[in-house]
């Protein structure tokens, strides 16, 4: 027995060591849910052993680079400075135009009760290392728990998203890049708004999955985050489509070139705080949607009291509840729900010549709070003033016709004067 053990000692030890590692691996795979917690301690040892060297080298590299670029290599700085000043002037003009557009877009978002996610606070961090393997696409940054970083925080650059925080140590954090196979980011195409899942491929590329093959996707189209993963705020740049082909299971195979250069990351921003709140316009914080609509859309002005009296006298028996004998087709121009949840429907009679006074007609009137509600009032005008006729399609502030929105679920149905009451 001893001779057998002695003869195969090396092989027995090899099998034993392999068995232990396979056992450990199997335990990690089985407990994949909290694998990171189970193996956290031993990962800390490795990270603590390697990152000080990396931090020191990065520091020395940056120091020497800064010394050279800031104190010695200043050739062309004056010309560049002049050029930048000119660029600032151009950008200021552009900013004025864009701020107008942004304010308008914000007002429209309020109307549609959109919610926006705002990036509240970010921490800038320096990339100090990687896993060193193309099978594990992660980077290490020099900020950790002490800087307020926590797992599942979004990491980005000014160009686009980079990844998410995977593990956090006191002064270092591990970031899983979007090019890793195990990453998944909710993304959408900018123009068509088609949504999919962004994943890394085994060879380090990035692909958009779960887009049906009958959809049209153009090469060069921009990809944005959709916000569906609850990690990245909606609308951050992801990249551009570089290749579109047929994939598996009726889905397209869309390859993406990331907006951020993942192979040359030096500094990144970690989104440590984001807040979700309804979009608010600076100049319309206290206005309700119906108020804004009422201000923008032309409507039939209130009748003077004298006219109303004479009309009542002419008809003799003006009964508001009585439907008019002459058919009047109402035209619904806009339905919107105000901030309190109530909805208002604008109904304007079409200008039809009338030869006899109507007993009552449905005309809108403006309430004291600015909302417009349908009321009944006697009508005597045979030819309504052209200025009082509402346009068929309301126009936005910029002059372009706005898309008619469907009526809210709890809005009043259109009043059809022809139908029996």
């Amino acid at each position, binding site marked *: 027995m001893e001779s057998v053990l002695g003869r195969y000692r*090396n092989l027995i030890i090899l099998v034993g060591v392999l068995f232990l590692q396979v056992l450990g691996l199997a335990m990690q*795979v089985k407990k994949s849910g909290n694998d990171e917690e189970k193996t956290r301690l031993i*990962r800390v040892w490795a990270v603590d052993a*390697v990152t000080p060297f990396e931090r020191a080298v990065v520091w020395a590299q940056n120091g020497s680079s800064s010394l050279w670029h800031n104190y010695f290599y200043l050739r062309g700085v004056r010309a560049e400075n002049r050029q930048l000043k000119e660029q600032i002037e151009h950008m200021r003009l552009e900013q004025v135009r864009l701020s107008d557009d942004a304010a308008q877009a914000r007002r429209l978002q309020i109307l549609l009760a959109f919610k926006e996610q705002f990036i509240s606070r970010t921490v800038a961090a320096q990339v100090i290392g990687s896993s060193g*393997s193309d099978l*594990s696409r992660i980077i290490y940054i020099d900020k950790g728990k002490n800087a307020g970083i926590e797992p599942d925080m979004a990491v980005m650059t000014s160009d686009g998203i980079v990844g998410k925080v995977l593990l956090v140590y006191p002064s270092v954090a591990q970031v899983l890049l979007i090019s890793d196979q195990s990453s998944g980011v909710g993304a959408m195409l900018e123009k068509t708004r088609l949504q999919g899942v962004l994943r890394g491929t*085994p060879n380090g590329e990035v692909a958009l999955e779960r887009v049906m093959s009958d959809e049209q996707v153009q090469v060069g189209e921009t990809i944005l985050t959709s916000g569906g993963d609850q990690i990245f705020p909606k609308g951050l740049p992801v990249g551009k489509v570089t290749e579109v082909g047929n994939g598996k299971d009726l889905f397209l195979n869309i390859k993406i070139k990331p907006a951020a250069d993942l192979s040359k990351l030096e500094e990144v921003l970690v989104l440590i705080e984001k807040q979700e709140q309804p979009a608010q316009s600076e100049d319309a914080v206290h206005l309700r949607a119906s108020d804004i609509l009422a201000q923008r859309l032309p409507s039939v002005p209130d009748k003077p009291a004298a006219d109303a009296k004479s009309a009542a006298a002419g008809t003799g028996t003006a009964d508001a509840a009585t439907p008019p004998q002459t058919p009047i087709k109402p035209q619904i121009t806009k339905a919107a729900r105000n901030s309190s949840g109530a909805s208002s429907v604008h109904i304007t009679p079409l200008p039809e010549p009338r030869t006899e006074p109507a007993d009552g007609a449905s005309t809108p009137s403006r309430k004291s709070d600015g909302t417009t509600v349908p009321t009944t009032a006697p009508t005597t005008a045979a030819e309504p003033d052209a200025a009082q006729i509402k346009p068929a399609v309301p126009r936005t502030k910029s002059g372009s016709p706005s898309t008619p929105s469907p009526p809210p679920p709890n809005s009043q149905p259109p009043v059809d004067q022809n139908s029996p009451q």
Partner: protein
Amino acid sequence: MPITYTSGEQVEVYRFSFPVTIGIPLLALFVQAFVPLRFPRFAVYFDLPLLVTIFFAMARRSPISGLLTGSVIGLAQDMLGHNPIGLYGIAKTVVGYGASSLGVKLDVENAGARFLVTLAFYLVHAAVYFTVARGMVNMTQTWSWPHGIVAGLANAFLGVLLYFLLDKFKQRT
């Protein structure tokens, strides 16, 4: 009697000082983790911890020492990534055992032998990793012979240069 191509007298067994034993693998891990930040293709083609494993295993010519060295270096490499710990550990344990066993039987002091041994063990390492990752962890892996051959040749070339540098740290027993 086992067949050997070098007699027992011809085989030199070397040892290394403690700082070298600890420092060289640590330096290899550091370089492997840091260089890809500046040269991203480095991580695709080169595996410095593997080269260090092969070097120590062949120099010590002890299978137990070789497999333990490979195991420790591989596990440390696993810890720097986010995949389950043990993938590189298992692969480098096999390589460490194989390289040290081969070192007992073959003269691996010349450049040609070192080149071929490194190329062969790179492919063994890739095959073991691929098998374990795909079979046990269910990771999506693609095997590419062109990539394997090119990366193996690149590692073999770098290995020959590196081994001559590391030879300076050898101590005769």
